[in-house]
């Protein structure tokens, strides 16, 4: 309970028990005839293919490169490159061409996909290796990891985010338990890359099995500790987590307060890439949802690039009534219009829910949205300023700080689509800022 400040947190039902203890499944390769890789990034920058139609590739062959921020892409199956296909790209928000590889089901691996790092690497060598491995933030953001560490100074802590606050998803949880050692080793590599003094792994305090697994491994290491955080949403958001663990705030990047944050699966991917020479070729997805709609929710390991339709075909889903398939958890995802979309490395999972019915009342100015916003924004005021197209007020209200966590729409008793309004307001402000910059040139 805060007097004038924002509470910025919400208690949500996690539904994690649906998939947390269920054995992990593995998608039979035979069921994946094609894999698809988008040729346009989420920020609309192009990804250039390095192979052409007819080329033969193996699992681990570099097939494309995004020049902006240098992100190489690797094939997840062995087979032949066939013609590009235009498919809907949910991260981008519109269709774009995809590179298509036809699976030959032989599962041949590239022998030397990545160079294994020798012992005692320098921090520049680590950063270079991460860069060449094409590792991106696997918590969902997909931000190129090497950039966070490139030339960074004065870092005290590496914060490993094993919180996974999005309801239904348990992919981080399950991989943490299964790969605790790799997580820690990867985290230590990151620590070296940033010249940090300590590593902190943050995890929710009710994740007993994961805490146990980590603690067992941590006895062998120094300078690395476990920190338990409360079960609240959005505890996994970078800003909230840094404030919770270190009591520090920052304006744009956590490096301002001497912290670098990375997801737990990213740390594991770093270890695998640098110490085992394996790029990211598979992804553990949580396929879950409301019990009446999906009878056998579970985590499933799939090759990157598998279409969602192939993944969902593995599950017993009640298709009698209309439903929603969300690419991610219920709070920050979008509902897919088609199942012909490709899974990517940062995909967390897919959730099946009933369509939501809204009753929209007038805003009663209760202030619940303002009180709950983790970024400290005032959605009600932003909505009014947006409807009035008052740009100065929108900028004054710092609308660009919104991360679309969804809490404002969640708490609104009148059912107003505040998150959507925030998205539109942000677009408007960015557009206006871009126009003004153009004018000044």
């Amino acid at each position, binding site marked *: 309970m805060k007097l004038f400040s924002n509470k910025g947190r919400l208690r949500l039902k996690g539904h994690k028990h649906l998939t947390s203890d269920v054995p992990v499944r593995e998608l039979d390769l035979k069921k994946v005839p094609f894999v698809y890789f988008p040729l346009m990034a989420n920020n609309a920058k192009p990804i250039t293919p390095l192979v052409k139609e007819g080329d033969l590739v193996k699992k681990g062959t570099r097939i494309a490169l995004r020049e902006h921020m240098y992100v190489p892409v690797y094939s997840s199956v062995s087979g032949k490159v066939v013609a590009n296909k235009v498919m809907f790209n949910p991260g981008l928000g519109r269709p774009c061409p995809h590179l298509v590889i036809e699976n030959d089901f032989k599962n041949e691996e590239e022998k030397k996909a990545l160079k294994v790092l020798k012992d005692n690497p320098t921090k520049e060598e680590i950063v270079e290796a991460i860069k060449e491995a094409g590792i991106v933030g696997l918590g969902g953001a997909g931000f190129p990891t090497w950039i966070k560490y490139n030339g960074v100074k004065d870092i005290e802590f590496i914060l490993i985010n094993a919180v996974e606050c999005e309801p239904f998803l348990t992919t981080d949880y399950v991989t943490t338990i299964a790969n605790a050692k790799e997580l820690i080793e990867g985290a230590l590599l990151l620590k070296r890359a940033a010249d940090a003094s300590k590593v902190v792994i943050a995890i929710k305090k009710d994740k007993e099995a994961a805490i146990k697994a980590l603690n067992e491994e941590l006895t062998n290491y120094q300078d690395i500790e476990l920190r338990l955080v409360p079960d609240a949403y959005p505890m996994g958001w970078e800003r909230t987590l840094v404030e919770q663990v270190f009591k520090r705030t920052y304006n744009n990047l956590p490096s301002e307060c001497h912290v670098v944050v990375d997801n737990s699966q990213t740390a594991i991917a770093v270890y695998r890439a640098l110490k085992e020479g394996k790029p990211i070729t598979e992804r553990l997805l949580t396929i879950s949802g409301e019990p009446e709609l999906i009878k056998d929710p579970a985590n499933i390991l799939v090759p990157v690039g598998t279409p969602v339709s*192939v993944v969902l075909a593995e599950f017993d*889903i009640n298709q009698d009534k209309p439903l*929603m398939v969300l690419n991610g958890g219920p709070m920050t995802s979008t509902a897919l219009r088609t*199942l012909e979309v490709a899974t990517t490395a940062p995909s967390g999972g897919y959730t099946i829910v009933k369509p939501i019915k809204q009753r929209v009342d007038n805003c*009663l100015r209760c*202030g619940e949205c303002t009180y709950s916003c983790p970024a400290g924004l005032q959605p009600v005021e932003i909505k009014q300023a947006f409807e009035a197209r008052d740009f100065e007020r929108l900028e004054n209200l710092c609308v660009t700080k919104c991360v679309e966590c*969804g809490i404002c729409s969640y708490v609104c008793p009148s059912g107003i*689509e505040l*998150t959507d309004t925030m998205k539109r307001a942000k677009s408007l402000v960015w557009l206006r800022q871009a126009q003004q910059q153009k004018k000044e040139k």
Partner: protein
Amino acid sequence: MAKTSSTTKEGEIKMELKTGFAPYRRSKQTTFKIMLELLIVLLVVYLAAIIYNFTLGAAYGLKAILMLLVSIVTTFLCDLFVAGIRYKKDKDGAFGPYLSKFLLGNYSIITAVILTLTVPIGTPYYVLIVGNIFATLLVKHAFGGFGNNIVNPAVAARIVLLLAFGSTLKATLGTDPIAGGSAAGATITTSYATQVGAKWLLGSLPEANGLTMLDIYLGRYSAAIGETFTILLLVAGVYLAVRKIINWRTPVFYFGTIALVAIPLALIAKVNVGNYLLLTFGLGGVVFGGVFMLTDPVTSPTSNFGKALIGIIAAFLTMLIRVAGNLPEGVAISILFVNFLVPVIDKLNGGVTNKDLWKKYVVAATLGLVTIGTMSAIGAGKMAKLAPGEEDTTSEEPLVEIFASYAGSYTSPAPDGGEHSSEFTTNVEVGLDIEFNIVKLEVSDYASPPKFLKDNELEQLVSFYTTLDVKGFRDLPAISISDAGASVGEGAHLIPGKGYSSVAIYRAIENAFSDINIATGSHTSAMCEPGEYCTYEDETLTVDVYTSLEESKILTLNLSEEGQSTDSFKNKWANKYPEILALYQGLDIDTFMGYTDPAELYVVDGDDLAAGLTYTCDRLFYAVQDAFMH
């Protein structure tokens, strides 16, 4: 929401996919549920009020129920009217679902219940209807319905009723006495507030109202229907805050600031701080306004800081109006003012809510200190204006004008060897109202040295005398000091052990009245012609005529209750009587006795002042003449 089906190559999946806006989970709390819970709490408060009103009489209880129904029906019809006007077939679809959505989404019933709770039981139905129409049509729907009104509809309507129909907002039905109110027709809140010279500063209950502090908090008195049962209102407030129907910051800062202002005021006025605090919250609409009206979310700022600010500002205004202003009640007006400030507060509260918190604390603290400081200064100023030296010897402040003043004195003889070694003179000044009731008694120089009659004993005497009229004084058994130096006689006007002073005061008043002569007369008149069907009974009017012996003129009249008028003419007579009485006052007795017909007195410049009330006026004329004929 788009709809697509999707199949895989083998045709295993055939889903009907729907889309929508993120997030795909929503809280279970809805505006409808919030308003419903608020309505239930309001109805519980109203139920308590209905039960209390039934204890006053069946008519009261029924009126309470009917007032609520009238309000609800009026707002419902207003909603219907606006729904009809706004309906556009192509935009809104079928009328039925549109209408139910409109009615259920505007929550006008809440306004109806709150407005009814803020008016007293004696409010006429037409006034209530006007108030509800104003609130619903003008304040709410003219601005766009629920969520768009700038000011609280119930508050605005209540103020309009106060300004336009103030005199009809009585706390009783008909001419019944007000429960807990004073005889002159004021509720306890009004009488508390209008104590001469020190509104809301002197913190003690007027004893004549006969209420204890517990009575105040349990609502055993009449004022507005819903604002009396303070304890229930506080419980309701706590419940609503815990259930998050209202935001706790507004009422807490409102009540807190009022308390922080009340404490220095009580200290300045040298009254019991605890008592004063209890009275500040117990009387008037502070608790009701703070719990139900100030907390209306539509007319509050959206940020928590803003919600706290309006509590502080409203508290400042409430106390300002109570202490420095002319109105007995400041709550509704302060809420209205604060409603106007809300857009400014929202506008100034830009940026993010979790930065620069120190600024917010500073602003809130500064506002609070300014409030407390200003109110303390105003209170000190008011106290200084109170005429000094009169507190000990004045009687209860009269709520009616003093019509005539008489001065008298008495010199007590000095007995030999008694406690009083020298004679002393007592002076009194007696204030009489228009019917020659004693309403004021000032006693000075009553004993030397003053230790003989204590202050509270003098107060006791004064209180006793002010319950009498001149005739009642004359009827008192005489008291005096015997030759042995002891007091003789008995009665409430003789304080045991304080014979000299008691007798001195008694004789002084007697001396003051020495010029007054009382003659009593009566007259019975037949209301109907013999043989005529009549629903009236023959009435006898008795009148005490006060005359001045020296000047041989009529000073005033004091009429018996019976015979004044029939029920149907009661109001007319009450309005007319002062004019008629004025004809008698100062009238020379011989001149009057020379009249043979009432018309000689009542027709002035061709105008028959008794027109329309001839029966009563004639009866009075004959009764007064009868008084002089003995």
